């Protein structure tokens, strides 16, 4: 099962390496990873997507909590959180196909970031599932290049964040 984990870390050299190294060492594969500053310049947020069993997820959370630079680990549970991803897609677009592609883009609120004689670069922000769908739809037209940021996420405004304190979780 896939899980999204949000990790707040001190914005210090090596913090990201320590987090990703833990995944590698314990044999967990990271599917996507996005990192950036938060509302506090001395704190960064790492959003990770991993495919693992619930038991492994608990292990991951506990092992992350042992890292000195890690401040808080939260699983972004579906339904309780928002997840977004940004993608840039360069699609083959001869004049004959342009209209159809632009219509597709409109459906997904994809912006045309660049337009060349033979191709279009779409910029799409949405849920990772939306990005998947759009990718599949444009692929038959000739998907020349694709880049995705990896998902980022936050808990919803309507719910309190569900944090895991490093001590005493196992009642």
């Amino acid at each position, binding site marked *: 099962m896939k899980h999204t984990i949000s990790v707040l870390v*001190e914005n210090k050299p090596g913090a990201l390496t320590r987090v990703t190294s833990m995944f590698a060492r314990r044999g967990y594969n990271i599917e996507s990873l996005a990192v950036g500053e938060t509302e506090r310049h001395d704190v960064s947020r790492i959003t990770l997507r991993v495919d693992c069993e619930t038991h492994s997820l608990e292990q991951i959370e*506990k092992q992350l909590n042992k890292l000195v630079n890690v401040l808080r680990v939260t699983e972004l549970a579906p339904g309780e959180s928002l997840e977004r991803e940004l993608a840039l897609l360069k699609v083959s677009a001869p004049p004959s196909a342009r209209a159809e592609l632009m219509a597709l883009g409109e459906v997904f609120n994809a912006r045309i970031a660049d337009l060349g004689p033979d191709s279009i670069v779409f910029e799409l922000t949405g849920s990772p599932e939306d990005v998947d769908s759009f990718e599949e739809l444009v692929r038959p037209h000739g998907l020349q290049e694709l880049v995705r940021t990896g998902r980022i996420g936050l808990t919803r405004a309507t719910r309190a964040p569900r944090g895991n304190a490093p001590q005493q979780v196992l009642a």
Partner: protein
Amino acid sequence: MNGADAVLRSLEAEGVEMMFGLPGGAILPLYDAMARGTTVRHVLARHEQGAGHMAEGYARASGRVGVAVATSGPGATNLVTPIADAWMDSTPLVCITGQVKSFLIGTDAFQECDITGITIPIVKHSWLVQDVNEIPHVMKAAFHVASTGRCGPVLVDIPRDVQEAEIDFVYPDEVNLPGWKPPRRGHPRQIKAAAQSIAEAERPILYVGGGVLNAHATDEVLALAEAGNLPVVTTLMAKSGFPESHELHVGWPGMHGPKWSNWALNKADVVVAVGARFDDRVTGKLSAFAPGATIVHLDIDAAEISKIRHADVPVVGPLKQILADLTKLVADEVLPGRTDAWLQQIAEWREQYPLRYSAEPNPAGTVPMLKPQRVLQMLQSLTAGRDDIVWTTGVGQHQMWAMQYVLCDRPRTFITSGGLGTMGYGLPAAVGAKAARPDATVICIDGDGCFQMTCQELATAALEDLPIVVLIVNNGYLGMVRQWQDMFSEGRFSQVNLTHSLPDYAALARAYGALGFTAENEEELEEALTTAIASGRTCVVDARVDPREHCFPMIPAGAAAVDVVEFQETEVPVV
């Protein structure tokens, strides 16, 4: 003062008395500062790996943080093995390494290596100090992280120019580590649940690991065992954490544990793991380990809970407090006599399944007659009743025989490499243990393979006036590998023959200013050991033993306790 002085003032402020190291280019300013004066004694090792294991031996024998120092590049990489060892065995260690000058970092400069990067998977934390003003805070944090929560190694890497920069030194009173929050107390509700499980158990057992020693909780675990009349098995890491001559001590579990100890652990209905981590060398086949038992798991490290075996009753926190609180409840709730039948059953197994080996002399005249098990028995009988012995070991057959035949009643008197299984650990660890316990007679039980990995530290023992006794259980082979090849590869011995006589260990010892003895029979061995132990000098006793002896019993890797392979031949019981 400069940054190097600040490092020493920090060590002094932490109450450090000993450090172990070897100088080199990038750490020169620190050694220059030592020459200008410090209260910390520096022990000069012959190899950084030796320095690291000395710091570990010191830490394990003293219960304090060990300190190792090395230069950049190869000096630092030579520390990697001790750091990994300390990581696996939760030994508190602060390693200080020199680094090339800041402006050279990343240029592949002479003796440059990214030691903080290399060690990320095997340290609790590490710091590359980029500003001299960080030194006091980093040093304070290093000692704090190494010694709080689950103990372990940390690394402080200091570029040479940072060591040379000027600083107004003020040592902080507190650390500022917002992400480091080791648990402070075990939850009362969980402790109550643990007591309940123990009170309801028909066949409870305490499965005690090295955590009790790190937690300084040996008195507390003894009190718990006595309060509930609970049998206790101690793991390799916990040996000496519970008095082995105590009637409630029922041996030690695992691959080479006595059959009756493994029976006791595997047939228990409630297993209370105390600072233990269900290592594969203890559990064997996991699905067959203590099947059906309720698992109560007490540990400082939440990540150990249900990592290997699901814990029915987890309690996370400092063992000293948890055990003390649990003991009060157990004393009230466990009915007197409740475990008598269970203890009786274990005692019967003990009678039924003693440790065995062939005491018959070997017919072939060309092989040494000494039995390795007999060597360990003799060592035990020559030191029985003494409370001033500290043992260290290497890794392999001799280590397992030491576990089987040497008895330890006092905490911190058995120091061995458990998790990493580091050959060559024993001799330098003995030097470190002697530094921690100058009053003690430190005896390293070593193998001939292990000895040859770190024997250069005999020079350190001799010149630093840290005398140790090294007993080489010399079977002329990489014995444990030979045993596996014999048992599991149809006797195809591959690259394991070291020979009994090259090097001449006694002569090598004398070359290092130590006393050297060679023993090929029991009379020679007894005389050599008696002389060595009484000498107060660094001694090497080369006991030439039968290479064909296997360490039994043995639960093959991945097998269940019921699949134990035992000594088969004439079955002469000797214990």
